[in-house]
């Protein structure tokens, strides 16, 4: 029962606003690489 609820919740979490999640993940990755590039460039 607990496992079923957990799976159901997980499916709901994944399926709500899927595009928003994909776009925000892309931005997060780009942002991370950008900041990493800046850090390397200025040798922090």
């Amino acid at each position: 029962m607990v496992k079923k609820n957990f799976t159901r919740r997980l499916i709901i979490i994944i399926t709500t606003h899927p595009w928003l999640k994909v776009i925000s993940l892309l931005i997060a990755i780009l942002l991370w690489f950008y900041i990493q590039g800046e850090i390397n460039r200025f040798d922090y």
Partner: protein
Amino acid sequence: MSQFMLQDIWKPVIEIVILWFVIYRIMLFFAGTRAILVLRGIIVILLAFFIVQRLNFLILEWLFTKLFAISVLALLIIFQPEIRQGLANLGRRHLFEIIKEGEDFDLVLKEVLTAVENLSNSKIGALIVLAKEDPLSEYIKSGVIIDGRPSSELIQTIFTPNSLLHDGGVILQGGRVMAAGCIFPLTQKEQLHRFLGTRHRAAIGLSEETDAVVIVVSEERQDISLAYKGQLYQGLTREVLFSKIKEIFKTEGGRWLKRILPAG
């Protein structure tokens, strides 16, 4: 060797996941407002900047860097109302999460359902919105801000005929009665029964645009309905309504009621 590699990987992954969560929450917050258009523009500029930087176009990169410096100030001015609202909601959102899970949510719901039952018995129409994850700031702005503790008396008073706020809907968000007299978009569905008036159409319309749960009381038929994700469920009793709303807020959706009207 592999241990070093693992250490090199998990830190960036955690950092990206944290960034992802923060960006997602910001985008979710702006999703229901007009600011999303501005946000989309910023995302396009950010992507362009990233590409320009990767391709080593120095002039364009210089231009973008200067543009960003100015745009920080511009953004603060453009988003000033949203930032203020967002900061004010930080504490409230936390409270909402507690209310959603705890016994307080049951109390709020019982007050709402008592009001719904009394309004139905008195043949008074009502439109009550229970906000979930999607922000309803645009709709709250269309009405009169109340920000009051929910009570059946308050809700019944709002919908009393001839009261100044009885037209439109009431929005409950964060365990508070946020606003009354709010205007909602009407559904464009054509397959609806002819006896469903503007109130029901507004309820379906809002549930199509957002993930809010909308309760409708029909003044002619004393019927209690619920609109969720574009579907209307009619002829509900207080007990059924209570358990189903609890189910929606607990599981954030799922198959919880037999559909009565066609999808359209």
